[in-house]
Each structure stands twice: as structure tokens, then as C-alpha cells.
């Protein structure tokens, strides 16, 4: 068992603290067998009280009958009614508890599973997310968890309940009449196998129907989103034909599913009632022969119908077992992916902002590395601009500072400490970055900007937004800063998103800030306004700016020109303008094309 737990860390984690609910559930299941007393009470009533026949009574009941006597019960029928109510009351209580404990177990397991998965997903390195499909992960985290929740929390207790019911029923029936007891379970093996086999088939057909529905809804979705193309080519009629084909295909497949289900319920109902019929007819036979009392016949038929329907479900539950293991395997696979670790000493030094790259190489396991020996130093408060050709490794360079990736060789040093030795959360808190395509959380703009410091004042928030030149834009929205963004809110333009992300990053008050081409969707004038506002801030952070705009680049203390993973050139605007190279080529193009700004603003 221990071995298995080690093999399934997620499973053992989720079971922790919930085993007691499962055990309590099991107790309630056993307690629920009190309902087996109900037929006994009616049996006692019929045999002894009404007919004066105590021959078929079970031990304790017989003692009771002998002690109290028939006349007492006849005069006080309410005693039996009360007993009946008491027994049903108890069984109702146990049933209720079973439901409650089962729910506690199932939901407790699901809670811990979800929690573990979520934490794990967040701690996985960025590289993992880059190479895994979002839809697939989300699918696993929802439907596989649901599958396991149902199986471990609900169905395992169902199996137990079925076994207990059959065992208790047989142990009561066997002493009364062994042959009849045996006969009362004769169809069970067939019933179990039949439902197991059927549900395999049903599932296969269900998958087919599901796929057909998938095709149909994809078709519909494409039709709705491609409505212009459809109309422009006048294809409505053909589209309807295509739709009808898929629609009737789905109809046929799901109807076939109903046919299978019909066969299953019909046949298993038949088998179940056949079992009750068998018990009854044989019981009548024994009664006529005088070997069984009326009350006991009632007990036998009641017990048989109490057993039949759970047994029918058993086959189905057992066939779910395979599915549950598959689900578990898939989830354990996610959990087995290694999370981000601290490769070094996990220091949390105060960060002033000196950044040094020493012979940094980096590659995504490919022969031609993204960065091939990059070295430079930025002093605290300096602004470094980066101009790079397409695919030159600019983004990788800044991501290495935050240790989103790790250098393959060489090292990045912050205030003289290798980033590998700095605790990653501390490191990231001290480095602000704005991505080219920023991600905003689906909540209000205010919550997005204040996301790293939710307790910041309104004033601070608006100041940051003003620096990012987005305050006025936000105030123009109907709900201002309370406007929802993301999936359930308004769609911001690329430039607006970038500016909100800049404001968000400024709230971080980090000593090192990075703009990864993050003003590309902002027009030149706003771009200039933002840069000016940044310059006027009280504290100067070490700033990295990736851009193509010479007007942006030329203000930096120095400019790195990256080509094919190497620093092709480095210097101030005037230095770079004095040599032939990518920088001057770009500058020339921008000046030539009538952008007077370049010559206006970039006089060194």
C-alpha cells in the first residue's frame, strides 16, 4: 500500500484527511442495513400476530413472541407501527448520513486535488506551459478530477453498499431457507456481466455521439463566425445542406445510443423482475409445501428487490474502474512534471539595480543557440536600449534576468550576485517587466493595475496610470477604473492593454524595469509622453527598453545592437550613428521617410 502511495502522490495527497469521511461513510452503509428489519416487522405481524404462527420466526423474534404473547400485539397494533416507523427512521438517518459523508469525502478529495493541481501548474516552469495545450490541461483538471471524485468518493462506497446488502440479505435468508436464499441470487452474475458489457458498449457509442456533436457544433461555430464569407459567396443553401448532414448524423448517433440504453434497461429490468419472479414462485412452492411461512415469503421478496437494483449498478461501476485509473494516470502525469526550483542559495539581497551579463549563452536545446556569449554591464539607474534583428534573442535576454529561463552557460549577475542564487520570487518582485502582448486578468482595470499591491491608494494608482498615459482613456470609459476587462469585459485595444500593463508594472516600484517591445502598439506621441513621465519619476530604476523606434533608443545611456544572438554593436546614439551598421540603417530609414522627430530629438 505504501508503495502504491508513493507511486500516486496526487492520490495520497487528496485522500489525506478524507479517509475518515470514507470510513464514516462505510459505517453509515453498514448502519443502513437496519432497513432489513422493516420486512421482518411486517413478517412478524403477518405470521405471528395475525396468523398465530411462530414457526418461521428468527431466534430473537421468537423469544419476543413467546414472552409477550399474541394477544398483547393484537390489542396494541400501534406498537408494531411504531417499530416500523422507528426502523425506517433509523434507516432514513443512516441514508442521510451516508449521503452527507459521501459528499464530504468526494468534495474533500476533489478540493485537495484541485488545489494540488493548481499550485503545481503555477509552479511549473514557463517552458512547460509554452509546450502544452491550454485546452488539454483545463480539460484534464476538470473532467478527470470529476471522474476521480465520483469514483473514489461515491462509487467505491456504492460497491461496498452492494456487497453489504447482498451479504446481510443472504445471512438472514439462508437460515430461514437455504435453497430459496440461493435461488434469490441466481441471476446476479448474469446481471453484473450484462451491465458491465453493456456499459462498455454504451460508452463507445457515447463517444461516437459526442464526436458527432463536436463536429456539428464546430460547423455551427464556423458558420456563425464566418457569416461574411458564407453570405459573400452566397453559400447559405449549401451551408444548410452541410448542417443538415451533420445534424442528422448526430441525431442518428445519439438515437443509436438511446437504442442501446433501451436494450440495456429493458433487458436488465427483465432480468431483475425475473429474479423477483423466481423468488416468488419458489417461495409459493415452499409455502404450499408448508416449509415457508407467509411472513417469510414477504421477507424473501422484499429482500430480493432490495438487492436486485444495486447489483444491476455494480457491473456499471466496475466497468468505470478502468476509466478512473486512466484519469488518475493523466493527472499524476501532470504532477510528475518537475516544478521550478532554487538551483542556488536562494538569497534575498537588497537589490540596487546593477545588472551584469557575463558570457551568457542560452538555447532551447537547439544547436544554434539563441544567445551566444552576451556580455555587458548596466549601472544602477542607467537606461539600456536594445535593438535587435528578427529572432535575435532580445526577449530571451530580458527573460533570463527574471530567471524565467536559465542560462546554458555564463551568468547574469545582479549587484554582483548570480541570479541563480537569488530566490526567484524575490528576484521577480524586484524586476518589473512589460510584455509586448500583455496579459490582463479578467477583473476590473483598477484591480489589474493594483494587482501586486491591492492596498495601494487610488491616488497612487491614478498616478501610475497617468505616467503610462492611460488615465484619461480609462476615465472616458463608462465605469472608469471599475471597467471589467478580459473575457467577460470590454476588449481593450493593443495599445491600451500595453499601457495598462505599464501602469501595473510601475506599481511594483522595482529597481529594475524592462519594456519588452511594450510600446509597439502605442503611437509615437504617446510613446514620447510615457518616456518623459518615466524620466520625471523620483526614483530612477535601471531600465531596459526593447524597441525599433530610434527616438526611443537614442535617449538611452547605451544601446545594444543584437544580431543572431550576439552583441553586434554597443554604444551611445552618436557613437552608433558614426559607424555603419543596423542601427544607422534603421535611423536613416526613419529620418529619410520624413520623420523629423528623429533628427529633432536625437541630437546627441
Amino acid at each position, binding site marked *: 500500500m505504501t508503495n502504491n502511495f508513493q507511486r500516486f502522490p496526487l492520490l495520497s495527497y487528496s485522500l489525506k484527511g478524507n479517509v475518515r469521511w470514507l470510513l464514516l461513510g462505510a459505517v453509515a452503509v453498514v448502519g443502513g442495513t437496519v432497513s432489513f428489519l422493516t420486512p421482518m416487522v411486517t413478517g412478524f405481524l403477518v405470521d405471528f400476530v395475525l396468523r398465530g404462527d411462530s414457526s418461521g420466526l428468527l431466534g430473537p423474534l421468537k423469544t419476543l413472541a413467546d414472552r409477550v404473547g399474541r394477544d398483547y400485539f393484537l390489542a396494541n397494533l400501534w406498537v408494531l407501527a411504531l417499530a416500523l*416507523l422507528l426502523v425506517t427512521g433509523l434507516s432514513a438517518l443512516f441514508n442521510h448520513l451516508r449521503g452527507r459523508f459521501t459528499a464530504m469525502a468526494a468534495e474533500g478529495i476533489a478540493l485537495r486535488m484541485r488545489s494540488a493541481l493548481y499550485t503545481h*501548474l503555477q509552479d511549473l516552469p514557463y517552458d512547460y506551459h509554452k509546450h502544452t495545450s491550454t485546452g488539454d490541461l483545463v480539460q484534464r483538471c476538470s473532467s478527470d478530477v470529476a471522474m476521480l471524485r465520483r469514483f473514489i468518493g461515491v462509487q467505491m462506497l456504492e460497491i461496498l453498499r452492494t456487497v453489504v446488502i447482498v451479504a446481510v440479505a443472504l445471512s438472514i435468508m439462508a437460515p430461514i431457507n437455504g435453497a430459496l436464499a440461493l435461488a434469490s441470487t441466481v441471476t446476479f452474475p448474469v446481471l453484473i456481466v450484462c451491465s458491465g458489457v453493456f456499459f462498455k458498449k454504451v460508452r463507445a457509442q457515447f463517444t461516437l455521439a459526442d464526436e458527432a456533436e463536436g463536429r456539428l457544433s464546430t460547423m455551427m461555430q464556423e458558420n456563425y463566425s464566418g457569416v461574411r464569407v458564407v453570405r459573400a459567396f452566397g453559400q447559405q443553401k449549401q451551408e444548410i445542406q452541410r448542417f443538415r448532414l451533420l445534424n442528422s448524423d448526430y441525431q442518428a448517433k445519439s438515437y443509436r445510443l*438511446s437504442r442501446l440504453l433501451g436494450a440495456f434497461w429493458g433487458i436488465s429490468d427483465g432480468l431483475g423482475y425475473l429474479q423477483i419472479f423466481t423468488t416468488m414462485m419458489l417461495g409459493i412452492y415452499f409455502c404450499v409445501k408448508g416449509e415457508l411461512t407467509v411472513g417469510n415469503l414477504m421477507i424473501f421478496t422484499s429482500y430480493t428487490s432490495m438487492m436486485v437494483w444495486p447489483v444491476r449498478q455494480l457491473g456499471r461501476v466496475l466497468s468505470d474502474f478502468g476509466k478512473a485509473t486512466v484519469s488518475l494516470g493523466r493527472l499524476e502525469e501532470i504532477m510528475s512534471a518537475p516544478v521550478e526550483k532554487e538551483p542556488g542559495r536562494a538569497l534575498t539581497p537588497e537589490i540596487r539595480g546593477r545588472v551584469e551579463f557575463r558570457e551568457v549563452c542560452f538555447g532551447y536545446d537547439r544547436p544554434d543557440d539563441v544567445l551566444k556569449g552576451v556580455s555587458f554591464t548596466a549601472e544602477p539607474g542607467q537606461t539600456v536600449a536594445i535593438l535587435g534583428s528578427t529572432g535575435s534573442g532580445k526577449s530571451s535576454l530580458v527573460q533570463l534576468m527574471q530567471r524565467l529561463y536559465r542560462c546554458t552557460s555564463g551568468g547574469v549577475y545582479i549587484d554582483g550576485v548570480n541570479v541563480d542564487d537569488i530566490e526567484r520570487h524575490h528576484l521577480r518582485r524586484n524586476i518589473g517587466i512589460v510584455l509586448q502582448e500583455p496579459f490582463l486578468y479578467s477583473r476590473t482595470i483598477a484591480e489589474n493595475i493594483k494587482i501586486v499591491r491591492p492596498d495601494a491608494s487610488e491616488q497612487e494608482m491614478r498616478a501610475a496610470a497617468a505616467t503610462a498615459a492611460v488615465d484619461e482613456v480609462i476615465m472616458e470609459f463608462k465605469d472608469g477604473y471599475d471597467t471589467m476587462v478580459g473575457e467577460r469585459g470590454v476588449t481593450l485595444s493593443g495599445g491600451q492593454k500595453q499601457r495598462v500593463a505599464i501602469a501595473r508594472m510601475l506599481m511594483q516600484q522595482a529597481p529594475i524595469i524592462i519594456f519588452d517591445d511594450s510600446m509597439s502598439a502605442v503611437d509615437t506621441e504617446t510613446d514620447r509622453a510615457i518616456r518623459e513621465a518615466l524620466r520625471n519619476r523620483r526614483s530612477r530604476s535601471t531600465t531596459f527598453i526593447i524597441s525599433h523606434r530610434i527616438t526611443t533608443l537614442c535617449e538611452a545611456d547605451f544601446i545594444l545592437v543584437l544580431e543572431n544572438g550576439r552583441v553586434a554593436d554597443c554604444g551611445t546614439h552618436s557613437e552608433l550613428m558614426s559607424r555603419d551598421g543596423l542601427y544607422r540603417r534603421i535611423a536613416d530609414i526613419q529620418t529619410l521617410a520624413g520623420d523629423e522627430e528623429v533628427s529633432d530629438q536625437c541630437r546627441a
Partner: protein
Amino acid sequence: MQGIEEQDFDQKLDLGTWKRLFKYAFSYRGVVLQILLTMGTVAAIDICYPLLARYAIDNFVVQRSSQGVLPFALLYLALVVLQSLGTWMFVERGGKLETLITARIRDDAFCHLQELSFSYYDKTPVGYLLARTVSDVTSISEIIAWSIVDVMWALVYAVGCFAVMFALSPKLALIVMLIVPFLAVVSVYFQRRILRCQRDVRKVNSRITGAYNESIMGAMTTKTLVREEANYGEFKVLIDEMRRTSVHSSVLSSTFMPLVMLLGSVGTAMAVVFGGGMITVGAISLGTLAAFINYTTQLFDPIQSLARIMAEFQTAQASAERVISLIDTPLEIREKPEVERVFGTNFEPKRENWPPITGEVEFKDVSFGYNQKELVLKNFNLLVKPGETIALVGETGAGKSTIVNLVCRFYEPTSGQVLIDGVDYRERSSLWLQESLGYVLQTPHLFSGTIEENIKFARPGATRQQVEEAARLVSAHDFITALKDGYDTQVGEGGALLSTGQKQLVSFARVILADPRIFVLDEATSSIDTETEKLIQRAITRILKGRTSFIVAHRLSTIRDADRILVIRDGGISESGSHSELMALRGYYYDLYTNQFRDEQQMQALKEAGE
């Protein structure tokens, strides 16, 4: 689909809505009738079992006689067989009815959507439409079909039970029936709460899915902002709520069922007390008492069934209204009856009456607004000769797309006329125009299926040879044949398996094969690699040849080569002429062109440095 706020649930039942929806069911009269008959039979057999037991007890067991046991057994067996067949039949027929209704409502909704105007599509997100036509339709059909099954059974069973009990012993029947009102109240109360609770569970569940989604999509941002713990804190609130609501929902259900059974046993207890007494005085037989005990333990079934169905209808009210309102949305663009008579409809065109199109397009005093308040175009006039290429440039929102939308008759002018070959296009059917129209979107839209199927979209009857010819003409052939399955390559949902450039080329081939007289292109702004860019430019030149073309243009090459360039500003033409004429003007176009030129040069330089 998460973006759609669902309307709230506790709405009053609106019988009118459901009456319309039930019409769908009753159009399958045969199936409905079969279901009703089956359920009647099944319920009748269910009522028979306690009677059979009664007969057995009174005649065989008490008398200790086996006389007549064989016919009894045969009858019993026959009922078992009949009931199994009944179960088989109702599950199958019920499923059939459900799937038929689903397909029918969906068909109505889909066909209606094919005719709804663009103003509807503009304000309705695709996710909303999809939710209406998929999940809402599914849940409505399910309720309609199975409510017919369940109500019939419950009614026959309940009425039959009481009738039989009454026949056996009116006095005992009346006593036992005292529990019915309590059962009904408890059932109605719980079923409503249970369904409401289940809805809450579903809501939280979809928020949890959303949270997973966000954590994965925003993984990079979360790391850079060190949001892990805060995110987890919020997620924890969600999953705690999930546990709370789920447990609550389970507890409700597991309170309801035992409670109902307990109520049932009150009935049994009364049967014991009063029935027992009646036996001793010989008023009823032992078998009758046993039958009463049996009936009282099952009485709750039909009652809670009816309560559940009522609650389900209430839950589905919002879905039902949304679907009906979609089907009832009026069409804004409607052909005049006389136009339909002569030229046919979209579904039954009368092509023999269609005059051929040469491709002259004229805007005559056209004004247009998407809403009453503001006009996007004001008294717009433009005459385009057959075969002429018009490039539309200008800022976003200036009205370029509106002009194109009007040419395609996606919208009709608020005032003024659009003339095709000198005739107001409202005097012709829209299919007449649209079958002669080719259209390529800014983000090319492909449909799931193979490349060949996509190229053949407008001409499904075309041969492989024609498809290849079209692809060759727009230089798509080479990249297609380089793919593993060539023309049979699946493009994936929305063309996701192809690159943007490849999707462009395929959509060009689609236009070539359709061979339209009028061509509309909304050019993409996104950058594409140099090689594909060249192919696309060449393809555009090929397509433009001999067709009247409107291009919302971004590429300098396309703009330069146009016969006429129109600068659109504030809903009108501010500059018009050839490239050299407009450059000489040194106006808006000049600025636009030089900026664009610079950007393209710069892109080129950055690309070259990286190669």
C-alpha cells in the same frame, strides 16, 4: 462560452413559450402516441405487481393450495416480459423523441440564422449564438421529451394506485391517502431547492474552469508579477465555495429521499394499525394488507416525479425564452415579394431569370449608419467602371469597411441607392449579387475540412483539376503539394493548422475558383514572412485582373497598383486619384504613404540583419 452571462433562473413559467416548444414534440405524433401508450402500459403493470402478490397470498399461501398456480405463473411471467419490453421501448422512444426535437429546433434556429442580418451578428457574440443553438436546445429538448414520458407514467400510476386501493378497501385507502399532501409539499419544496443548488454548483464549476484557464494562459505574467500565492488564495475561495455548494446540494438530496421514504412509512404504519385491525374482524384479507403495504412504500415515486418535472420546467424557462427569441428575431433585410417572385430566394434561386453582371458599381447619394444616431457615410457618391480597381485608405473607423459592406449588400443604404450595372440592387435578389462576388477577409476564414474542400467552397462541383489550376494561379499549389496529404490536408478548426500566409493563399484560390465579377479584399495588417508576402502580392495582382475590385488596402504595392485610390475621411472621399496624383498633392495620402514606406523598409532591414 464563459463570457455569456446567464439570465436568472427563478422565473415565472410562461406557458406560451412552452406551448410553442411542445409543438415541436407534437409534430412527431406517432412517437408521442407510442410513448403515451407504453407509459400507460408500464404504469399499469407496476400497479399489477402488488395485486399479483395479493392473489398469491390469498389463494396459494394461505389456502396452501397450488391450484391455478400455473396460469398465475404464466401471467406473471408475461407481465415481466411485457414490462421489460415497455422499459426498452420507452427508453428508446423517449430518446428518439428527444433527438428528433433537438435536431428540429436546431434546424429552425440555424436556418433562421442564415437569413438574419449582419446588424444582428454585429451585436451578438458567436459564443452566445453557439450556447443558444447547442446547450439551450439540448436541455429544452431533454425536458420536453422526458416530461412526456414521466408525466404520463406518474399520472397513470398515481391514479391507478388510488383506484385499486379504493376498490380493495375504500376506508383504508382514504386513511393511507392522508400522507399524499405532505408528500407533495415536501417534494415541491425540496426539488426546487435541489435544482437551484445544482445550478449554483454548475456556476462555480465554470468559474473554476475559467480560473484554470487564466492560470495557464497568464502563466508568464503570473510569474513575473509573483502572483502565485495571491492567485492561489483566490482559487482557494472558489474551490472552498465549490465544496460548500456541492456538499449542500448532496445533503439536500440525501435529506429529501429519506424524508420522503419516512413519510411513506407513516402510510405503511397506518396500514398496519388500521389494516391489522380490519383483518382480525375479517374486513380485508391478508393479501390485501400486503398489497397496501406495498403501495404505501411506492406512493412517493409519482409525486416526487411530478414535483421534479415542475421544477425542471422552471429552471429551463430562461433557456426556452432565449431559444424562442432567437427563432423569432425579425429579418431586417427582406427581399420584396416581386423580387422573390422573379429571381427566387436564397434557397430556391431562379437563376434562369438572372441577368448577367458586368460589374459596374455605383453609389448614388448613399447615407448609412449602423444606428439611428450617427451616420458613417453621408451622401456618398462613387461610380466604378467594370474591371476597375479601387483602393480604399484612411484611418480606422473612417468608413472604409462600411463601403465594402454596402457593396456586398451585408447592409443596405439608409438612404440613397447602390446600383449594380445601373440597377438598384434591391430590385434583384441578394444571391444574384453574391454569387458574382468574391470576398477575402482581413483574417482569412477557413472551414474545417480539407484544403480542397475549402477552395471549392463556392463551387462544390468543381473538379480536382480546376482546384489545382486555381491554386496554381495564386501560387498556393507549391506549398499545398509540399504538405503530407496535399490537397487532402485537413486545415483544422478555423484553419488553425495552417499559417496565416497559407490561409490567405487558400482563400485567394477560393476566390479564383468562384470567378466573381466583383472582388472585395480587406487586406491584413499582420506581418508575414518575406517569401509568402511576395506570393501574396503576386496572387492579388492575378485576382484583380478583369474584375471590379474594392480593396481596403494596407500594402503599398497593392495601393500603388490600384486604378484609383480613395482616401476616406469622416464618411466621405477626401482625396481621390492615382498614386502619383495623390503624392503630388502632398496631403493625407502623402503622409500615410511615407510612414508606411518607412515601416516596410525598417521591417526589411531588421529581417535581413537576422538572416
